[in-house]
C-alpha cells in the first residue's frame, strides 16, 4: 500500500473533502467538476504523471463517504476510479483537471450493445462499460443513445445506454478492470455508508430538538433505541469497509461483495428509518433524505437488488 508513503491520514482527507464538496454543491455540473478537481479530489488516486496524487484507495474512501453524507449528486467515485485506471494516459489527466467527467455503467457490456446504471450519464463526457470479455472500454458519451428510466428518481433518472454506435476512446485490460471493480465496490459501500451517516446525524439532531409530550423526542426510549440501532448498523458497515481495505492474514485481497451487500442493506435501513423518524415531514420533498434513499436504492438495483447477498451465499456454499 502506498498509504504510509506520504505520512498522510485518510481521515484528514475526509475533512478537507467536506469543504470542497459543500462548495461544489453550490455549482452546476461543470462548475462542480472544477471545484472538485481544484481540491485534488478527482485525481486523488490517479498517477502523478496525470496530475494526480497517486494515493491508495483508502484515501478516496473518506472523500466518497463525505460525498454520500452531503448527498453530492455527481459521479465523483466513478471519476476517481476511472482516472486511476487510465494510468498515464492523457485521458486520465483530463479527468484529474476537471476538464472531463466520466461515469461507469454498472450493468451490461459492449458485447451486449446495451448497458445501464451509469450515474449522471447525460451530463458526462465519457462512460466506462464492460467489454464483455473481462476488460472494459471507455466510450464517448456523445456516441451513445440514452434512454431514461425515471421510476425511482424523477430528478436523476437511471440511464440505459444503447451502445450500437459506441465510439471507444480507451480500453482497460481484464486485470485493471478487475481492480477497478473491486475498488468500485469498496467506494460504493463507502458512499452508501456515508449517506447513512448523514441521514443518521440529521435525524439525531432533529429528534433532540423536536419536543413532543413535554420532552425532546430522543428522550423517548423507543426513539433512542431505534437511533442506537441505526448507529450500530452504520458502525458495523464502517468496520467491514475498513477491514476489506487491508489484505487478509495470508496477504490475499479480501472479498468485497459481502461488505458491499451489507453496506447497501444497512444504508437503506438507516435512511428509511431516518425518513420515518421525521414523521410527516419525512414523507416530503422539504427534506433531502429521499435523495439519499433513491441514490442507495439505485446502487442496490445496479447490483441486482439483493442479488449480491444471494451470490455471496452461493459462493460461500461452493467454498465449503
Amino acid at each position, binding site marked *: 500500500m502506498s498509504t504510509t508513503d506520504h505520512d498522510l491520514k485518510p481521515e484528514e482527507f475526509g475533512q478537507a473533502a467536506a469543504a470542497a464538496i459543500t462548495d461544489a454543491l453550490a455549482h452546476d455540473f461543470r462548475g462542480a467538476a472544477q471545484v472538485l478537481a481544484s481540491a485534488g479530489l478527482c485525481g486523488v488516486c490517479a498517477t502523478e504523471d496525470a496530475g494526480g496524487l497517486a494515493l491508495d484507495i483508502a484515501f478516496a474512501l473518506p472523500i466518497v463517504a463525505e460525498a454520500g453524507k452531503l448527498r453530492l449528486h455527481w459521479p465523483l467515485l466513478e471519476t476517481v476510479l476511472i482516472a486511476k485506471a487510465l494510468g498515464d494516459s492523457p485521458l486520465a489527466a483530463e479527468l484529474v483537471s476537471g476538464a472531463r467527467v466520466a461515469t461507469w455503467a454498472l450493468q451490461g457490456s459492449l458485447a451486449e450493445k446495451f448497458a445501464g446504471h451509469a450515474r449522471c450519464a447525460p451530463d458526462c463526457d465519457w462512460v466506462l462499460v464492460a467489454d464483455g470479455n473481462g476488460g472494459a472500454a471507455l466510450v464517448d458519451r456523445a456516441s451513445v443513445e440514452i434512454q431514461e428510466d425515471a421510476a425511482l428518481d424523477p430528478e436523476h433518472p437511471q440511464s440505459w445506454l444503447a451502445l450500437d454506435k459506441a465510439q471507444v476512446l480507451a480500453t482497460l485490460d481484464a486485470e485493471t478492470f478487475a481492480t477497478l471493480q473491486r475498488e468500485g465496490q469498496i467506494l460504493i459501500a463507502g458512499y452508501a455508508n456515508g449517506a447513512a451517516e448523514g441521514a443518521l446525524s440529521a435525524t439525531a439532531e432533529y429528534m433532540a430538538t423536536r419536543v413532543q409530550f413535554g420532552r425532546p423526542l430522543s428522550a423517548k426510549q423507543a426513539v433512542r*433505541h431505534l*437511533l442506537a440501532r441505526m448507529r*450500530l448498523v452504520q458502525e458495523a458497515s464502517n468496520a*467491514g469497509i475498513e*477491514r476489506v481495505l487491508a489484505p487478509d492474514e495470508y496477504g490475499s485481497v479480501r472479498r468485497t461483495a459481502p461488505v458491499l451487500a451489507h453496506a447497501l442493506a444497512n444504508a437503506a435501513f438507516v435512511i428509511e428509518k431516518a425518513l420515518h423518524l421525521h414523521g410527516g415531514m419525512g414523507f416530503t420533498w422539504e427534506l433531502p433524505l429521499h435523495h439519499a434513499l433513491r441514490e442507495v436504492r439505485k446502487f442496490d438495483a445496479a447490483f441486482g437488488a439483493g442479488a449480491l447477498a*444471494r451470490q455471496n451465499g452461493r459462493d460461500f456454499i461452493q467454498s465449503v
Partner: protein
Amino acid sequence: MHMEQNPTRPDPAAGPAAYRDYARQWLRAHLPGHMHADSLAYRTPTLDECRDWEASMYHAGLAGMTWPQAYGGLGLTLREHLVVNKEVGALAMPESVSSIGKELAGPIIQTVGTEEQKLQFLPRILAIQDYWCQGFSEPDAGSDLARLRTKATQEGDSWRINGQKIWTSGAAKAHYCLLLTRTGTVADKHRGMLMFAVPMDTPGIRVVPIKSIDGKESFAEVFFDNVVVPDSARLGAPDEGWNAAIRVLSIERATNRMYRAWRFDSELRQLVAACKSDPELAKLLDDGHTQRRIGEVVGEIDALKGLVERTVEQLMAGKSIGARGSLTKLHWSECHQAFMGLALSLVSHVTPRSSALAQRAKKHFTTAYLFARAETIYAGTTEVQLDIIAQRIMNLPKDL
C-alpha cells in the same frame, strides 16, 4: 496440509504472524478427535477433559498472551491475543471452561488487586487450577445493578457477607466468586460497592443449580448466609466497586471471547457441510432465499470481524474502548441469533434417514439455537446496550 506434532513456540519478538502459524499448527495437531464439535467422532467432553485441554493450551503458550510474565502470562500484545483467538475460533472446539477467570476476574485483579492477590490468583487462573464465577446479578438487580443489596459489613479485619446472587454461571464448579456487594443501602446507588474474591468453600455459601433452556445446569442461585472473609479477600478500595464492576462489564462486552466471529464462520461452514452431506438437504441450498440469508450472515460476520479488529487496534493505540464495547456486544448477539434461526430452519428438515453428519448437525444447531436465546440477555441485555449507545456514544438525552 502437513501438521507438525510439536511446532516450536516462536520467539516473542517474531510478531503476530509467527504466533498465528504456531497456534494453527499446534491446535490442529493436539485437539483430541472427540472434541471436534463438527465431526462424527464428537462426544460431549467431561469437565476434566475440557480443563486438561485448556491447561495444555496454556502450557503451549496459547493463553495469557497479554498478561505480565510475573503472573504466569507471556507479556505479549493484544495482536498476538487476537491471532490466537482467530485460530481458536476457526476450530469447532469446546467453549472455554474458564472464561470468567481468564477474561473477567483476571483483568480486574490485574487492575485493582494487590501484589499478593496477583501472585496468588493469576497464575492459577491461567493454568486452569482455579475456576471463577461472577456474582453480580441478584433477583432484584439485573439490568439495574445499582439496586443490588448483598451486604458486606466490616468486623475488624474481616467482612461479613449476607445476600443472594442469581444466574451465576459455573457457580457449582467455581473455586472463587468475583462478588459484588454493597457496604451501605440500596439508596446509595453506585456508592459503597465493594468487590471481593470469595472462596466458594467458605462456610455459609450455598449453591442451588438452576436448569436452563438447554437442559443443563450451568448456572445457579448462590446464597451468602453470614459468610466471613478476611480483609485480604477485598479487591480494590471500598467505593471502588462500581468502577471496577463497570470496567469488568466493558471488558466483557468489548474483548471477551474475541474468537466469536471466527467461530461463527466455522459454524456456518459446519452447517453448509452437513447440508451438503445429504442429497435431500443439499436441495435446500439451491433455494435463492436460503442463499440470500447465508450471504447476509456472511456479511454480518465480516462486519463483526471488522469491529473486533478495530477494537484491538484502538486498544493498541492506547485508546479506551468504554461504551463502544456495547456496539460489538449488540452486533454479535443479534447476528448469532439470526444465524441460529437460519440454522434451525435448515436442520429442521433432517429426518432419521438423513446422513449421520446431518443428524449430528441437527443436535448441535438445535441446542445452539436454544442457547443463543441467552446471548441477548447476558453481559447486558439488548435494551441496556441500546441505551448505552444512545446515551454514551450518541449523547442523546435520557427520559426522566
